[in-house]
């Protein structure tokens, strides 16, 4: 399946929220949909799910107009809640029925996921009797009921302990492998990097980056290298390099210096220069930015 979000515009009370938002999601690859708070992620998702109509643009699935009512979409919103005083299985079935799943199927699926999340003992308990982490698992279960074709997870790991996080990771990997269409959003970039082959970055209602994550990393990491010395600390090394070669753009992280080589220089040449300058090399490698770096750079560019 290929879901295309095409040229979506949306405004509220005269204020434009989404400006020509376009990106594509395909099955078998999770899409990391990233953005700062208030960037327009939730508005895009709500427009996709037909909570309200976009002012312009289309949602297209495999070349045909996308009607969310015809699909089972499992949605886990970032700000989420369920009925505290209702029995867990009852409300899981209720939410599933509202999405068009038959009662018997919803019940069977609800019981399966509660068992999978080791909460089957609590199926007839009220939600408020569970701990916060277990309540989160129930919320995740409601998104998975009925084997949805499309899964949208927004901060799914929030509130989960490491053991439960691992359970959820296994579920997400399973769904990706099953060929489901998965849209994943989180501010914890390590999770996004772990699951997502594709990313789309939205800022102030505009898509500022979209594509394959590895390709983006390679592109943004081009002409950059990591360097660490045995006989100089990072500060001294930076000074040495500044004297050694003109036009070097040097930054650093906790691991090493990050050097942006100018166009008139290359890795081999630079290595020779370092050795000539008496620098004993501990580490030299091509640099790949982390998703956090990419996020900060790109969003920073938008604000510049």
């Amino acid at each position, binding site marked *: 399946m290929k879901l295309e979000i095409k040229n979506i515009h949306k405004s509220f*009370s*005269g204020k434009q929220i989404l400006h020509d938002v376009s990106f594509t999601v395909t099955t078998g690859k999770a899409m990391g949909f990233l953005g700062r708070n208030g960037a327009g992620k939730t508005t895009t998702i*709500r427009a996709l*799910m037909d*909570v*309200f109509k976009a*002012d312009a643009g289309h949602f297209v699935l495999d070349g045909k107009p996308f009607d969310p009512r015809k699909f089972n*979409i499992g*949605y886990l*919103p970032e*700000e*989420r*809640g*369920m*009925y*505290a005083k*209702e029995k867990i299985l009852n409300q899981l079935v*209720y*939410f599933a*029925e*509202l*999405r068009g799943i038959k009662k018997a199927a919803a019940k069977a699926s609800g019981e399966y996921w509660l068992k999978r999340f080791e909460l089957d003992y609590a199926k007839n308990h009220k939600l408020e009797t569970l701990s916060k982490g277990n309540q989160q698992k129930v919320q995740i279960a*409601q998104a998975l009921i009925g084997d949805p074709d499309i899964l949208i997870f927004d901060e799914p790991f929030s509130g989960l302990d490491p053991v439960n996080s691992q359970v959820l990771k296994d579920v997400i990997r399973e769904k990706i492998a099953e060929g489901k269409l998965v849209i994943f959003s989180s501010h914890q970039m390590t999770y996004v990097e772990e699951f997502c082959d594709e990313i789309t970055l939205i800022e102030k209602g505009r898509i500022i980056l979209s594509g394959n994550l590895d390709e983006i990393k390679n592109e943004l990491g081009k002409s950059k290298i990591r360097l660490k010395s045995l006989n100089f600390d990072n500060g001294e090394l930076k000074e040495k390099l500044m004297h050694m070669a003109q036009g070097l753009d040097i930054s650093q992280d906790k691991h090493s210096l990050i050097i942006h080589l100018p166009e008139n220089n290359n890795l081999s040449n630079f290595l020779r220069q370092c050795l000539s300058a008496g620098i004993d090399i501990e580490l030299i490698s091509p640099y790949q930015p982390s998703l956090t770096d990419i996020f900060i750079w790109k969003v920073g560019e938008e604000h510049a």
Partner: protein
Amino acid sequence: MHNIFKVFAFELKSILSKKSIIITTAIISIVLLIATTIPTILQMFDNGEENPQPTDKISLMGSGIVIANEAITLAELEIFFRDITIYDSESEVRKALNDEKIVQAYIITSPTAFTTIVVNRDLYSNASFPIRNALTQLQIRRNLIELDLDPIAVSQAYNVNISVNEIVIGKDASDSFLIAYVLMFAVYMLVIMYGAMVSTSVAREKDNRTMELLITSTKPDALIIGKVLANGLAGVLQFGFVMIIGVIGIFVNRVNYPGELLSMVLGGLRFDSLLVFLIFTFFGYLLYLFIYASLGSLVSKMEDVSSSVAPITLLFIAAYVIASLGLQMPEIMLVKIGSYVPFTAILAMPVRYFLTAVSWLELAVSLTLMTLTAWLFARISIDIYRLGSLNYGNKMSFVKALKLIREDKRK
């Protein structure tokens, strides 16, 4: 359409299984059953005791008398009163008042003058009446004797019994008053309780973010309609159950009810009056529930619900006040106008119809206004709910929400 029913079924089951609903229904039913059984209980106690001798004398228990200037004799007082306590002076009787041994004191200064001293006087106090009546009777007697007239003969001449037969061809307000009051009060409680319940339910869904799952699972229209119908029916079931318990209690104990009381209870039970009551209650109840639900959607925090629904609650209280006036004076202009304005007609028109003549034309006009208003406000409420369910932040006013909806429709 399907989802309206799913929401309705879920909400109704949720409300009816709440402990607070079950317990309050049980308590009110038990209290009502006991209340309707009181005549039977009193009858049982009366049957076990000797009937006390009837007496025309009024008891002056709790009162103190000072006879000054030999204005009157104790024997004369004993013609009219029993349990008489005489004090020697005003100061003594004032002390007894201050010590709360008595609640009122009479200082009789002459055959035609006396002073009443009470600790507190309420609006309906008639503390002076018994003594005034007694002194009047005594003075008339003296005047007749002075005129050489026989007081007994004069009293017999005054003792005329006129037989009266009243026929009411329209409505007898005395028959319908009690039933009109009970039904009016029941509808008042129904709207206040279940209006608050539906607005709180909506606000809670926004507060704890359940709304985020709901609006992405189904259309907001299904949510509000299902919720309003569920709360509406739950209220009717709860109040209906309590009413049935009351009716059963009255029916089982009816033989022990005084005839006048039974006439007051049953006299107003006319099919047409009950039909008018049911129709106006149905539309008015839905009108208010829709508005309450939409106001609940305009807040994001539970603590803002009460301020959001305050205006509509005040409006309904005004409807109650107008209808209460109608119980006493169903023909006054305020009540007549109130029986046409849909927000007040829910109570005012049934009260008017129970107690006085209302033409079919008046009913038809009022009902048409009521149904159109209920439909219009249901539509507006659905639009407001749709808007409110997506908005978080500060409480939005009803007027601002209407403006936003109008702008949205223009787009």
